[in-house]
């Protein structure tokens, strides 16, 4: 793409973002403010994730971009194209081949390796935002590790519904110090974050925050001992590849209540189908 720097952002901006990333990695789960730039995609479409990816991408990297677990949802296509044009890096749909994976709302089923980086797109970095809209307040709570508000909310859920009612963007304690939003991944994916071998980076463009989980870090979903965290998934096998342990999309197939459940992770599903033949 003529007239633009490698991966679109100028080098000063990348350096600024990388400094933020280093701070974030040094304090797992802590939100680091950064000077987010206006990008050619709208806020809410992944500008934070894009800025993080742009800052860490090198010419030899292999990039995978997924949205809702799939490589070919329109926004994943759009972002992958953006980097193909501005960075000319090799792109892939195979999780195993990628060195950098940018994702919206899912963690791939295949376990990630130490040589991989996963970049999450984050709409709302503040895990307490629904309970306390003021950022001045929540910043103080994080500083003092004062998370009573969140514990109380979980208690209330059980008192009212008999169970914790959060099904996605389920809050986690990182390194037993910071309360963090894992981004709107389904609760089903939370366990993958715990002691993950890969580096996990989180970018929120509109809210202008970066945070990170270094490899092999403890990530614990909040729960009670007698009401332990439970992942939610449709109680069916994948209708295409037969997997029983992957997160499923629900497809409406007719107007008589017909349903088909299919792996959300398109690469995982395709790989399993190939192996079966």
């Amino acid at each position, binding site marked *: 793409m003529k007239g633009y720097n490698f991966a679109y952002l100028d080098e000063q901006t990348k350096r600024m973002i990388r400094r933020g990333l280093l701070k974030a990695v040094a304090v797992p789960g802590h939100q680091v*403010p*950064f000077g987010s730039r*206006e990008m050619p995609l*709208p806020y809410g479409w992944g500008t934070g994730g894009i800025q993080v990816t742009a800052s860490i991408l090198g010419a030899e990297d292999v990039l995978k971009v997924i949205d*809702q677990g799939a490589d*070919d949802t329109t926004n994943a296509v759009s972002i992958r194209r953006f980097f193909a044009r501005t960075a000319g890096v090799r792109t892939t749909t195979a999780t195993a081949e990628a060195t950098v994976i940018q994702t919206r709302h899912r963690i791939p089923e295949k376990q990630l390796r130490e040589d991989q980086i996963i970049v999450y797109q984050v709409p709302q970095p503040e895990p307490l935002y629904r309970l306390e809209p003021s950022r001045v307040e929540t910043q103080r709570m994080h500083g003092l590790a004062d998370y009573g508000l969140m514990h109380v909310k979980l208690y209330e859920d059980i008192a009212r519904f008999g169970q914790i009612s959060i099904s*996605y963007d389920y809050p986690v304690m990182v390194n037993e110090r910071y309360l963090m939003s894992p981004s709107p991944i389904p609760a089903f994916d939370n366990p993958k974050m715990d002691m993950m071998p890969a580096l996990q980076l989180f970018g929120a463009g509109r809210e202008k925050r970066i945070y990170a989980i270094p490899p092999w870090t403890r990530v614990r979903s909040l729960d009670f001992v007698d009401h332990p965290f439970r992942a939610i998934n449709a109680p069916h096998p994948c209708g295409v590849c037969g997997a029983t342990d992957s997160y499923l*999309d629900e497809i409406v197939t007719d107007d008589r209540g017909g349903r088909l459940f299919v792996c*959300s992770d398109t690469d995982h599903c395709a790989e399993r189908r190939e192996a079966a033949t």
Partner: protein
Amino acid sequence: MAYVAVKGGEQAIDNAHAWLAEERRGDTATPALSVTQIAEQLGRSVDRVMAEGSLYDRELAALAIKQAQGDLIEAAFLLRAYRTTLPRFAHSKPVETATMRIERRVSAIFKDLLGGQVLGPTYDYTHRLLDFGLMEDQVVGAAVGSKVSDETMPRVPDILGQEGLLESDVVSDREPGDLTREPLTFPAERDVRLQALARGDEGFLLGLGYSTQRGYGGSHPFAGEIRMGEVSVEIEPAELGFAIDIGDLVLTECQMVNQFKGSKTVPPQFTRGYGLVFGFGERKAMAMALVDRAMRAAELSEDVTAPAQNIEFVLYHSDNIEATGFVEHLKLPHYVDFQSELQNVRRMREKAE
């Protein structure tokens, strides 16, 4: 029926873009809009896009408006994204509105004042009757008299300030904050608040300003002065050691004069609300001044009760590029999270039955 996964995202996008281009062009029997026509004849749209795009360039703003088919927030977004790619090579000196080449200058607090009430090219006294004559090209007669005033036009705050009736501006050497480079942090000082308002959404600020007039944190505002015209932009390169004029900006400035109750130790003074915006943006400048004053409530020991006085609320929601991005992002697929909610609710219903 065998399930075939939906593919072809790339093709769908290309098709959408092609259709968009067709829509934008419209009926090819109609002459295409030129960017120059937009710049010349849709000046108020251009002004708004420059203000909210935070970039003063009439031609680029006009291009953005054409590309966005007249959607002004989309056009401002285009300008902002373009701005990101521009290198910054200098800071200008603060522009001097006191020496503005006035096209319009009115004050609601004095019947007459030095320099007079200069109406300028205002809509204020038009009767809002659709002019069907505009459906044809009309020959427009020249305006009577000179357009730019030579008269001395002291600023109303300076007039009031002579008697000590109006609080004086805080003079500071501190480098002002820059929201285009740094994230918003709190406490947000006035320089950052004003910058956010200057590039904030006109409609949002209008609503908030209006709310202060209706009792949601009022401050008894008077329009001390509104002035519109050209100011010089100067930079002072280190190698030269003196300032050079690199161009002009058209600005609209509004000074609101508000009531303040003095105390036993502080003699009563009027307080200020300030608005400044690119181009001919009177509505925005006035709304900005109202909201600026409202956000000073805590500083002036007033109770903070209304939305317009809540600094966090105003600053986090005034940027329409951020707002439209997040509101519209709801269109993006959210079916993975919805699936979790579905299963959650199904399970809870089972338990309840």
